[in-house]
């Protein structure tokens, strides 16, 4: 793959899928900054590299929808709401209802957090429905070969199939869990929950063995659930595209119909779990 100047048709199924699963990574390689041409090069770049494609789409979608909502909110009217305002209000009201159902404490940040998560993840997941090669092979690859002289560049358009993206979000939620736990229970209360919780203080090591992984499992399961679901969906789209070639669209459509359920569901699950985790972080100790 080092001389990755083949046309897409010459790739084997495995090469095609590997190509579509790699990121457009920008980082330091061999002493200069540039794009990684292979997954191996991307791995060599270490931590200080950025997946331009997924992160770019993530920023674009997040900023786009927030800007759109902001414009709608700025021109909102009480008496004469436009159709688009009704839609945004419906989304806000939906999020607000879920928050007030599951979150029993007062925190002004939870609503906006959940609105951002829900709609952002929904949009990022929806990118999965764009036919695999529409933006990638026919769009960006041509652009990259002309502008960066980078033949056959990878270009992933579904940010939630990048574990960096999903884990980044779940880790921020994890930090919020820790922040609100310490804020509401005190450092002692937070550590006490880990150390003394299920079995009392005489079983402290045992309690820690149970509680610390439970705490750490929250962000990991949150991030990996979203990643796993979308990765699996994306992989199936890639298989369809790789094996059926030009005939992919009907099969793509059939799988998209099934995947259509996963896309909002995973966004919703991420939001709901965030609410539940943060609600638990606000709970005062019972004794």
């Amino acid at each position: 793959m080092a001389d990755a100047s083949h046309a897409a048709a010459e790739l084997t199924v495995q090469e095609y899928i590997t190509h579509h699963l790699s990121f457009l990574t920008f980082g330091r390689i061999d002493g200069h900054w540039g794009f990684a041409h292979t997954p191996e090069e991307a791995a060599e770049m270490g931590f200080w590299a950025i997946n331009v494609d997924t992160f770019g789409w993530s920023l674009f979608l997040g900023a786009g929808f927030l800007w759109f909502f902001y414009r709608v909110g700025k021109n909102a009217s009480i008496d004469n709401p436009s159709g688009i305002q009704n839609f945004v209000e419906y989304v806000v009201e939906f999020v607000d209802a879920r928050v007030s159902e599951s979150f029993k404490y007062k925190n002004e940040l939870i609503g906006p957090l959940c609105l951002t998560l829900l709609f952002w993840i929904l949009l990022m997941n929806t990118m999965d429905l764009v036919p695999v090669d529409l933006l990638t092979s026919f769009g960006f690859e041509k652009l990259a070969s002309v502008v960066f002289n980078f033949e056959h560049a990878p270009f992933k358009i579904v940010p939630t199939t990048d574990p960096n993206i999903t884990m980044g979000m779940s880790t921020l939620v994890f930090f919020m869990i820790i922040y609100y736990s310490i804020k509401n229970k005190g450092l002692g209360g937070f550590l006490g929950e880990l150390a003394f919780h299920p079995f009392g203080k005489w079983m402290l090591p045992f309690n820690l063995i149970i509680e610390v992984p439970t705490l750490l499992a929250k962000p990991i399961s949150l991030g990996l659930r979203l990643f796993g679901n979308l990765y699996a969906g994306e992989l199936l789209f890639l298989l369809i595209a790789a094996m059926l070639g030009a005939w992919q669209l009907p099969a793509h459509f059939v799988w998209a119909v099934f995947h259509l359920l996963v896309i909002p569901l995973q966004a919703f699950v991420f939001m709901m779990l965030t609410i539940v985790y943060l609600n638990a972080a606000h709970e005062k100790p019972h004794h």
Partner: protein
Amino acid sequence: MNINATFLGQMIAMAFFVWFCAKYVWPPFVGIMEERKKRIADGLEAASRAQKDLESAQARSEEQLKDAKADAAAIIDQANKRAAQIVDEAKEQAREEGQRIISGANAEIEQEVNRAKEALRSQVSAIAIAGAEKILEGSIDEAANEEMLNKLATEL
């Protein structure tokens, strides 16, 4: 599929987006929905207040109608009584008037009779004198005169 700085970038981006959403996106919509909720509540309250007002106004108007009916009945009653009284008074007056007219007429009649009697009496003496003159002119038949004078006297 290695973890790299995208992870940090996504965290920073999310923190910024959540901040932006909390500051500029969430408040207008929540404000509008609160305001609309408040307006609906106000409207419902105003409607129930108007309903209550209407009910009290209806009760008041019914009461006033009842009072007016009672007043009207009292007035009519009074008027009837007054009318009867007026009729009675008029009858009484008429009767008195009639009585007075009758008694006046009677007095006049009596006066008339007395006057006639007086006139007759004065004329009787004149007739008697004339008769006596006639008798004196003719043959004096004492017996006959006597008889005639007696007859006259009894006639008077």
